[in-house]
Structures are given as C-alpha cells and as structure tokens.
C-alpha cells in the first residue's frame, strides 16, 4: 500500500547533530547512485555482463517556497556562500525511523520569481561522504 508524501521532511543542520531545520520544500527528492563497474571477462561468463559496485554517490534536490525569515533556507545559503559544512536529513515519513542523513555540499541555490507566482528557491545538494541511517 502506498504512503502519502506530504508527511515527508527534508532537514538541514550545520553540525549534523543538533538543531535540524525543516526546509519549506514542495517537491524534494533523494537520488542514491554511483558507479557500476563492468567486470565482464571471457573466462567467467555465460554470455551476460557481470558488474561490481564502485563508489557510491548521492544527491538531493529540494524546490522550496521562499521566506525571508526561514532559517533552513538561510542556513543553506550561508553554507554555499561561506563554503561551510552542511548536513541533510531525508525523512520519508517525517520521523527518523526510515530516514537517511549525510554531509553535503550545495551545488546550486537558485532563487526565482514570476510576477504572478510565489518566490521560490531551488536547491541542489551533492553528497560529501557516507549516507547513513538517520
């Protein structure tokens, strides 16, 4: 049975331990990828490719509604402009039960506004190290 996404939380923290702040995200996503290395060789295959996993990598995107008073947006912006440490937590059900967390760098912080729309911020984060249970 499916689970509604509206309970999800994307959180950021300056130290990864305390003071986790909720991003006012509207369509966040977590992508866990990395390298898949082809080790197919003549000696040991039945006509199929074989592979091993190489380095892992992850990325997070979070389109958010902007507010000048929002502490989470301010923290992400400060981390980008100041090249400061940042940690993110992706909580699919809003709790740490199924959550994942890791250190990140801010790849881009894109602020935009159409005269007839809301002010929005599009944030993309790249993993900087391990992704672990929240």
């Amino acid at each position, binding site marked *: 049975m499916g689970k509604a996404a509206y309970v999800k939380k994307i959180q950021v923290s300056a130290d990864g331990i305390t003071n986790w702040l909720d991003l006012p995200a509207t369509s966040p996503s977590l992508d866990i990828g990395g390298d898949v290395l082809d080790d197919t060789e003549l000696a040991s295959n039945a006509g199929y490719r074989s592979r091993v996993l190489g*380095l892992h990598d992850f990325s997070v995107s979070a389109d958010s509604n902007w507010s000048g008073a929002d502490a989470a947006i301010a923290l992400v912006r400060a981390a980008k402009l100041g090249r400061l440490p940042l940690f993110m937590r992706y909580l699919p059900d809003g709790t740490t039960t199924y959550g994942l967390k890791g250190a990140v760098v801010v790849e881009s912080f894109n602020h935009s*506004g159409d005269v007839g729309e809301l002010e929005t911020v599009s944030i993309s984060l790249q993993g900087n190290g*391990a992704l672990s249970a929240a």
Partner: protein
Amino acid sequence: MGVPAYKALIKSSGTPTAMLQEPMTEISDGVFIITSVNKRVLSLEHPYTIQRSSNQSPISPGSITAADLISGTFTIPDAEGMGLEINATYIPVSEIIGANKYSLDIGGDILDDTNFLEARVNGGFRTKVYGIFDVTVSIDRNSDYGQKFIDYKRNRERVFIEIRPGADTQSEFAGVYRGWFFAESTGLAGDIGDLETESIKFNLAGSNLANFCFVQNEPII
C-alpha cells in the same frame, strides 16, 4: 508560508554620481557604513577617499583593513569612535522597468576529491569540496523600447544588479542580493498579437574589488 513574488524589487545601475563629504556611521567597533542607504554601492572605476569629518584630514588607505564596495562598508580599526565621511562615486540603482520574471542562480564547481583512505573509512562514498563559484541572473521584462541593456552589452560595460525578493519596502527581513555582472545576452521578441518583451541573461563579472554578496538585515540608519 509562501511569499508572492510580485513584491520583489529588481534593480540595476544608473549613471555613476560623484559625492563629497558623504557621512558615514560606525555600526560596530571600527566598522563604518555609508549612512545614506541609496549611496552604498560604489563605482569600481573611480577612486574613493575617507576622511575625518571634523577637519577633512584623510584616513590612510593602509588603515582600511577591509572594504566592501557593494555594501559601502569599511573596516578601519584605528578610526574607532571617530566621525568619518567619504568622497567617492556611487552607483544609483533603480527598478528595472517592466521586469516580470527573474531567476538568480548561485552555482559553480563542485570538485570530487575522493581518495582511497577516506573512501575505505566512509564505506565507499564520493567526497567533494567547493571550487570556484559563479552566479547567473536572468530577467524577463516587458520592453519599453529602451536599449539600456543592449547598450551595456554593446559597450562591454558591467552592470550592477540588486535583487530583493519578496519585499516592496526595505523591511528588516528582506535580504538583498547584489553583484556586478556582464550582460551575456539580450533578446527582443514579440508576437504580432502580444507584447514586445526582452530577455536578458547576466553572468557574474567577478573581480578582487567586488563580487557578489547577500546582505540580511541591512542596517538602515
């Protein structure tokens, strides 16, 4: 809670204007800001001098430990407690006529510094560090037939862009993005039954004098 974008203030630079004996205010120990909020963006092409307001004796440039020509802020520890004024050329900014859409992208390079030692320790995950930053701005506007941005492009001149999201007044929480840019491209278009529009894309024109900044809670005196 969302903020409607129609309140955004999008401004660009006007004609550089000389100012003499413009008052400065000490906002913290040894940190001075140009008092008039409308005169804080200084020209990068014109010199400035800071002097004591009591007798106009100049402050030596060597005493200025930090100078932010985008926010009009100077750090002069030796001048703590003094009344100061500045002779300079400031850049007046005014709203871009007809602007109805913008985007500001703070990006740049992310460098992969993954190595054997750290990857073994962290379970085989890539690690990264920040490289060079870059900023791009795009602005769509209803054209007034003016060629201001076409002229910036043609004359290869820098243009100052200021973006204050979600605020039509200088309220405390309305942070402001500021920077010097080159107009990478500008295009005019208009369907026979529609408005004439202009789309302008700017790239950051970084230098060791001024790049890009975000100022939260800008002191308004």
